[in-house]
């Protein structure tokens, strides 16, 4: 009897595939849009007050209030979109393959996967001052032949992930089992 897992972590997950790690880029790199959204949201809601303070013009019109509300709502949608993009841009390490889901802009998606057996080398890179300050790294997974290379950007525990992937390529799994063992 074939057991089919009802809850799957990602699309096309095999029944015998175990997810070891779901990695997301650090939220620190998302701070610029968070700050921008908050500032603009407050500014749009108080547009009337700002114009009155700086220019001395009182904009007491129904339409102005409506536009303020509308722009603030746009900022909320913008922030939601950015958050969703961050939340769903993940790298997944399983016992069979490495998946990379990239969602950068509205409607853009880039899904890359490679089998563990095709991995040639794993490189950890620290580039830039922010990377040094917050301990964020880029993990590059080089694969053999025409298989696509995979990059995990701005992750915090790069060496831990690198170690796990290196172990997987040698057939050693995080649960202690070795490929070929019959459990």
């Amino acid at each position, binding site marked *: 009897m074939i057991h089919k897992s009802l*809850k*799957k*972590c*990602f*699309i096309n997950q095999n029944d015998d595939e175990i997810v070891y790690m*779901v990695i997301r880029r650090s939220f620190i790199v998302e701070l610029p849009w968070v700050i921008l959204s908050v500032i603009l949201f407050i500014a749009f809601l108080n547009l009337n007050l700002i114009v009155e303070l700086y220019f001395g013009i009182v904009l007491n019109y*129904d*339409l102005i209030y*409506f*536009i303020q509300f*509308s722009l603030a*709502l*746009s900022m*909320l*949608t*913008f922030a*939601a*979109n950015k958050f*969703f*993009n961050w*939340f*769903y841009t*993940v790298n*997944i390490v399983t016992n069979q393959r490495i998946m990379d*889901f990239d*969602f950068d802009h*509205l*409607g853009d*998606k880039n*899904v890359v996967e490679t089998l563990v057996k095709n991995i040639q080398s794993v490189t950890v890179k620290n580039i830039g001052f922010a990377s040094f300050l917050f301990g964020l790294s880029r993990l590059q997974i080089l694969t053999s032949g025409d298989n696509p290379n995979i990059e995990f950007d701005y992750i915090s525990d790069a060496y831990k992930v690198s170690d796990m992937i290196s172990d997987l390529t040698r057939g050693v799994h995080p649960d202690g089992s070795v490929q070929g063992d019959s459990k």
Partner: protein
Amino acid sequence: MNQTILQLFLFALMALSLVLYVLNPSYVITLVKIIFSVANFIFAFFVFRHLIDMNNHYKSKLYPILFLFGFGVLAIPVLVILGLFL
């Protein structure tokens, strides 16, 4: 091609505004409100559709909460548009 369509659309919008202003200046205010609401709705709809598409790839446990939030963002412009005509 897209630029031409956009230019034609903006020209039609200006012509419509002028006609409405001649008929009754308050109609222009309603038109601006509708334009802003529809633009908000389209933006929120794309974000909501993008959320559903992303969840088809990586299935999150937090999806019900995110879905409700996305739906809330989408519903506000709809309510505003309805409110303009009721």
